[in-house]
């Protein structure tokens, strides 16, 4: 037992928490004992501690595969802010020289974040082989499964990489994996795995769905609810434009609230500014796209609205999971308008190549082969050639690799097989389309559910759920008038620049 007491001490030393949250200690103990672990923990309960603490305690280096560059960057920034400096993120944005330099100095780091695509590079593998990798972490492990909501083909090649770099123990983590997906993860890794599955339902989040006829009604509902409460709130949108527009409208309708918007199209500095203003309670409401919140560790978000609903239940659970991390009562409000289902439908279509896209790609490939040319590496050039999005290209490219048509630096194929291959790619595309459409249908069915929303949301992921008496869901009946969260007290607005400058730089003037 002294072992566990020690662990708590380490947690305190490195992260400043005195106790573990549900599941963390069990997972970390197994990881430290060199076991392979699958950990399913609800969002917002500190999944990352499960490898960040071992990374500091273990002898060698910990590698974390993460699907999103922005997520990696945020984590690195946060860790550096807690004085953990031996951490680095490797991604394709680094230019060649910088990357080369980093590779040579990899041994200096304790924790290395890397994208699944980068991990395929022979050069990186070469350097990793020379090091002692003591833990291999697969974050967002549901990306392995094509039944998961964010399938990433390169995740399926992770097993090979793990073997290549000395077969270190594996920790696969996810917050949203159905039983099907859990099995997929285990099968894909081909090794004995200890499962730590924790219930993902969050009993402190009330689920409310309100159907409206027109968008204007959504605005009215949000205005009415928030005029009663000045609390940290998020409003999710499916487009940048909508987020901006509603943000402007709301700041007029709620003059006492501080409203801002956030999306991936903003400049880096402005993104940091808005995120951190929200963290520091300088703003109350953020109108955002799904780009917001991934790295955000704010524990007192009280409302999460969905002005547009996402195309799958997993995303919805992730987004509402940003509410109430302090355990206090919080509310999710999904505003549904019949026309809204077109938006996720469009999104699905834009993510996969159309028949026309595939046809053009095929023609170009044949031309390149005939002229013995090399395919450009830069995505911008590829986009100019094919007129497709990055996600679409990733799909085609990985399929061609799988069929042995595309190699590291070019294209090679047996002419007789081209038609067959493209036919197969089309089939796989159709399969993915089917999976995504099924997920959208699941989401729509849940929205239209007449019975308890909590039951309907969580039982597909786990056996049973925690029943909630009050504040369960809009189908069980809720009384929002009794909801009485702690209101934000705004920072004093200073009238002049002289005073503001003083607050920043003179002792005794800061709060």
């Amino acid at each position, binding site marked *: 037992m002294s072992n566990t007491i020690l662990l708590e001490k380490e947690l305190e030393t490195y992260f400043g928490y005195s106790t573990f949250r549900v599941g963390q200690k069990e997972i970390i103990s197994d990881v430290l004992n060199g076991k392979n672990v699958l950990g399913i923990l609800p969002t917002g309960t500190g999944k990352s501690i499960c490898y960040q603490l071992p990374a500091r305690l273990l002898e060698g280096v910990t590698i974390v595969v993460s699907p999103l560059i922005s997520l990696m*960057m945020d984590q690195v*920034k*946060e860790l*550096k*802010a*807690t*004085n953990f400096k031996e951490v680095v993120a490797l991604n394709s944005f680094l230019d060649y020289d910088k990357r080369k330099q980093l590779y040579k100095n990899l041994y200096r780091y304790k924790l290395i974040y890397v994208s699944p695509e980068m991990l395929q590079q022979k050069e990186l593998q070469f350097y990793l082989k020379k090091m002692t990798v003591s833990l291999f972490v697969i974050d967002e492990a549901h990306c392995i499964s094509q039944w998961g909501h964010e399938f990433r083909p390169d995740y399926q090649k992770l097993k090979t990489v793990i073997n290549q770099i000395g077969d270190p123990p594996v920790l696969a983590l996810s917050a949203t994996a159905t039983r099907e997906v859990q099995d997929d993860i285990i099968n894909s890794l081909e090794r004995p795995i200890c499962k730590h599955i924790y219930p993902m339902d969050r009993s402190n989040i009330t689920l409310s769905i309100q159907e409206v006829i027109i968008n204007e009604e959504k605005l009215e509902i949000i205005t009415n609810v928030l005029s009663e409460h000045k609390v940290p709130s998020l409003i999710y949108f499916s487009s940048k434009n909508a987020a901006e527009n509603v943000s402007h409208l709301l*700041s007029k309708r709620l003059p006492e609230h501080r409203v*801002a*918007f956030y999306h991936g199209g*903003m*400049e*880096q*500095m*402005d993104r*940091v*500014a*808005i*995120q*951190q*203003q929200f963290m*520091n309670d*300088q703003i109350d409401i953020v109108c955002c796209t799904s780009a917001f919140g991934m790295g955000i560790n704010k524990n007192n978000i009280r409302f999460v609205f969905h002005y547009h609903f996402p195309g799958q239940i997993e995303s919805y659970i992730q987004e509402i999971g940003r509410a109430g991390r302090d355990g206090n009562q919080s509310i999710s409000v999904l505003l549904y308008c019949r026309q809204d289902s077109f938006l996720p439908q469009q999104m699905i279509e834009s993510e996969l190549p159309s028949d026309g896209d595939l046809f053009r790609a095929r023609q170009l490939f044949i031309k390149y082969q005939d002229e013995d040319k090399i395919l450009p590496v830069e995505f911008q050039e590829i986009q100019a050639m094919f007129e497709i999005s990055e996600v679409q290209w990733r799909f085609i490219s990985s399929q061609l690799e799988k069929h042995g048509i595309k190699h590291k630096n070019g294209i090679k194929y047996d002419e007789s097989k081209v038609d067959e291959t493209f036919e197969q790619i089309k089939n796989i595309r159709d399969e993915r389309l089917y999976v995504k459409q099924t997920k959208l249908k699941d989401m729509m069915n849940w929205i239209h559910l007449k019975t308890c929303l909590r039951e309907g949301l969580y039982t597909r992921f786990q056996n049973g759920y925690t029943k909630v008496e009050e504040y369960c869901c809009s189908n069980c009946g809720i009384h929002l008038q009794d909801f009485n969260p702690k209101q934000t007290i705004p*920072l004093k607005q200073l009238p*002049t*620049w*002289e005073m*503001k*400058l*003083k*607050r*920043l*730089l*003179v*002792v005794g003037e*800061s*709060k």
Partner: protein
Amino acid sequence: MYVEGITLDCLTQIKFNRSIYGIYHLLTGKKSIQSVHDARIFQLEKYYGVHLSLTRNQFLQIVNVMLENGLLNKDDGNEFYHVTKAGKEKLSLFQGTTIFSYLNGLSFSGIERQFRDRLYLLVQTYSNILVNNYSFIPIVDSQEVTKWVKDFYRRHQQSNFPDQLYHELYQLLSLLPKGEADFFVDRLSGYQYYGLSMEQLAIKYNLSRDDTIIYLTGITHVLINLVSQKKEAYPILSQLIIGFDQQKFITNTANQTFHLLKKQYSLEQIVQIRNLKLNTIYDHIVEIALYDSSFQIESYVNKKEQEEIIAAIQLNNTFKLKTIKESCSSTISYFQIRLVLTRLKELLPEGEIHV
């Protein structure tokens, strides 16, 4: 207001000598010899690179709105724009603003961003250190700037340092009108406090997105100017612009050619050594001539040739290279014409040419 004013000023100066995209390239600080050249010959140096993030479509949008609002007219048959009477009034309004007098793009567009980024991170860092907080999310996410601030901090750990920084900023910003100082300080971040985003500033100060950018650019230019003119009064802030003074050429590659020229290599030799085309070396020489007024152009275009080119410019009342070339004898090259254009101010009596 600002972005329109700048466009009107550019159109007034350039007239029909360049298409509307010449202005776009100027504003976005296109690193081509043509854009720098244009800035010089049309005396629009101050606008070079004042709106780096402007896209082509946004620019066309601005021009279209100006057409709709009657600030501009357009000839039916071609792509040339005239400034209307209303446009002239708007322009003179703009020319009365402080921002107009602050802008100094050709000198400062390369250092403006770094001046601000270094300052933002410096203020945020010392504001946190002031309360013994050593971990925070940096507002500027650039390794280069982070490294600079770290090095700076290692050299300046005195406990009264934040106070000194405060006094320098106070002294400097007091030289600006109140509204401009308000704007600039609102963007600063510190301990548990993050400055406003550009969008937030636009709303608070009732400016368009483009004008917010130019407003900030203008203020930054005047601050750099004030600091560099009186370095002894700003021992901290003057360090933000160290390393920028020597930056004479826009491109590194022209600088390399310049070094070879100084070692008396011939153009043909330089072509060999650098493995570049002769035309590229010509570009470099025009670039050098633009930046270094003491650079002698006589060895490339003799006095007689210069006179012939000048006469062609005056006769046709234009800076269009093609027209000038057609009006000269066939032995005169584009390279020679471009070189002469870099020396217009010296070769022509003041105000003699109005194109």
